[in-house]
């Protein structure tokens, strides 16, 4: 069962790799391509690529300018290169508080996503492989959780955390980040499809406990799904802005999104902050890019997970 399910995926991706250079996704029918469909598809993709990349290009250009050139030169082309100077200013401003924020973000997103993945993986595995009363009810509640936007939960969470005096601490952002209903859903679907009951049975017969079976057998089989959950959760925590905004008051605890937002909200009256916001925003996307480059192979596999059953 596992081979049956896993073998098409690499095959598909090999084919996709091979054909990526010369085949448009809209023309899967035969050897003869319609040149109009092909150039049409390329045009659509080109427009969207431009649409997504221009803001990043703008950011790169803007972050490389000194503040006096920012308003007076072409916004989409470089003036003199002062990006090193700008980074130096950012390091110096308020004792490099920005890098503290960056580290906080890496911690919230990295540790949070890792633990969230473990928890979601265990939940999904348990829901898929154990039979117990209320299993479907629990699963449906978790599914319902996917539909509730995190933003809607921020204020209730604040009031709850206030009661136990945990607002304005690392926990206030970290604990809610450990929950990923979508991760549970994905892990369950994937565990059901990729972890054969026979294998679990065999592990039990060999004397492995349930926890050991999960970590040594199931986790390896579920790995692509777990990487997907990790990436989703990493990005979700990294971009989660509203929860820290509501929870945190101490600048030393801020993630980079909230810190940059705070500065940006005062650009009108303290214009020198604009330069810091620009260079800070540029630097803040680097960790995300690194994470994606390292894990994109798994991400692509994982996205298709459960779509063909």
């Amino acid at each position, binding site marked *: 069962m596992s081979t049956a399910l896993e073998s098409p995926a690499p095959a598909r991706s090999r084919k996709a790799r091979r054909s990526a250079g010369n085949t448009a996704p809209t023309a899967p029918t035969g050897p003869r391509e319609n040149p109009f469909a092909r150039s049409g598809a390329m045009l659509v993709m080109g427009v969207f690529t431009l649409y997504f990349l221009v803001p990043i290009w703008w950011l790169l250009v803007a972050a490389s300018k000194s503040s006096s050139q920012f308003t007076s030169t072409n916004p989409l082309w470089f003036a003199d290169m002062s990006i090193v100077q700008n980074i130096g200013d950012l390091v110096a401003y308020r004792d490099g508080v920005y890098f503290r924020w960056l580290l906080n973000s890496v911690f919230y997103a990295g540790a949070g996503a890792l633990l969230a993945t473990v928890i979601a993986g265990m939940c999904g595995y348990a829901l898929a492989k154990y039979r117990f009363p209320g299993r479907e009810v629990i699963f449906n509640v978790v599914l319902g959780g996917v539909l509730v936007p995190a933003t809607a939960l921020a204020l209730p969470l604040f009031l709850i955390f206030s*009661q*136990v005096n945990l607002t304005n601490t690392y926990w206030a952002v970290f604990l809610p980040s450990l929950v990923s209903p979508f991760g549970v859903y994905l892990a369950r679907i994937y565990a059901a499809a990729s972890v054969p009951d026979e294998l679990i049975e065999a592990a039990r017969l060999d004397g492995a406990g349930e926890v050991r079976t999960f970590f040594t057998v199931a986790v390896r089989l579920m790995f692509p799904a777990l990487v997907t959950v990790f990436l989703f959760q990493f990005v979700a925590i990294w971009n989660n802005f509203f929860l820290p905004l509501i929870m945190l008051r101490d600048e030393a605890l801020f993630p980079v999104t909230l810190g940059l937002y705070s500065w940006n909200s005062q650009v009108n009256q303290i214009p020198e902050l604009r330069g810091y916001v620009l260079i800070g925003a540029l630097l803040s996307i680097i960790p995300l890019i690194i994470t994606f480059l390292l894990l994109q192979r798994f991400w692509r596999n994982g996205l298709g997970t459960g779509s063909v059953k």
Partner: protein
Amino acid sequence: MRMNKRAATVALLSVAAVGLAGCSSADSSPDSSGDAAAAVGDCAPSTGKVDLTFTSWIPGMEDVVAVWNEQNPDIQVAVQTGPNGNGGTYQNFFNQLKAGNAPDLGQIEYDALPNFRVQDGLMDLAACDGVLDAQEDFVDWTWGQVNFGEADAVYAIPQDSGPMAMFYRADLFEANNIAIPTTWAEYATAAEQVRATGGYITNFSQSDINQFAGLVWQAGGTWFQNDGTDWTVDLTSAESTKVADYWQDLVDRDLVSVNPPWTTEWDNAYNTGSDWTWNSAAWGANSIMSGAPDTAGKWAVAPSPQWEAGDAASGNWGGSSTAVFKGSEHPYEAAQFALWLNTSDESLTLLNKSANLYPAAKSGLELPVLKEGVAFYGDQPIYDVFAEASGQVSADFVWGPTMTQTYNDVSDGFKAAVSGQGTLSEALATGQDSTIAALEAQAIPVKK
């Protein structure tokens, strides 16, 4: 399976225990703080060392507070921060007031104070030693912003202010032989002359309604009044309508540019010399400096144009206060800190340096740093103009309890008006209706 059931039961019980523990601790804390609040109703000093929390979004506030902490080992203040008020900090204050963990002190802009007052979030500091006497230390109108016209109440200590004057391109006016306008009528005439050279006399701010309110303030109008219980909404007063019609005429005749404020186009219009003047507040000096760096040395500052020749009235744009929140257990110490923060020379100098704050304290207007000539303005000691303007701001302007909503609604109308749909005074009329509706929706009594 029995194992599972037992595990589930244990889990449920532990969740319930945590929940109960949470509830019980929450139940006990309001009682204790309630007692404390009752005890300090007369604002007595606390005994022993006191720790205060202070939320402000001003970068560099820590450095100012560090000076206080060094001088006052028994009253230690911890700074908390966040985005500016409307960017989220006000909402946080309301959340915290609801949760019972508001900071002792918070920064609140004048236009947001009535909202906190209406929601009963502010502590009246009048009973605290030295607070009522401090009235004479502050510019008169700023005190009116924090006591809402009640003689024996003080809901916050004024921090900074934004008296308005006219920034203008001295070089362009001189080169084109155009007189510096001293009245709004002359300003309109100058606008025609400037337009003839290809420029615009200024930019009409279609979305920053605060500036427009400052112009209404200068004209002697007010948008709200409160007689102690009932609110009156007056966006369509004669003064307000007069100001709206004046700018409508300039917009209609294409004598002012209408770039959205605080954008790069807007900066660029000043940087390239296309816009010639800006009717702005003291803190705006730095905005031009950084937005229009190529024009260094070419600017100057003159008093705002007047509605009647010979008048001397000024408006205000911006400014904030330091408030003590309901629930603070140490209002006396909090008030002492707030007074020091906003009147002492060392604090005001630091605040001006780190955040361009223009003080609300009279002594602050005489700070050496505010007496110097500024190179960007041709070495003119520009803050003398603002110090004079500060004394000419009317004390009668009152903000409403739902300013965010009012700003948004008027701004929507203004944006439509500058693109030719409707007029500015119609936008004010719409804002008037929607503000009354918003007040009524919050069960705030409105007089019609």
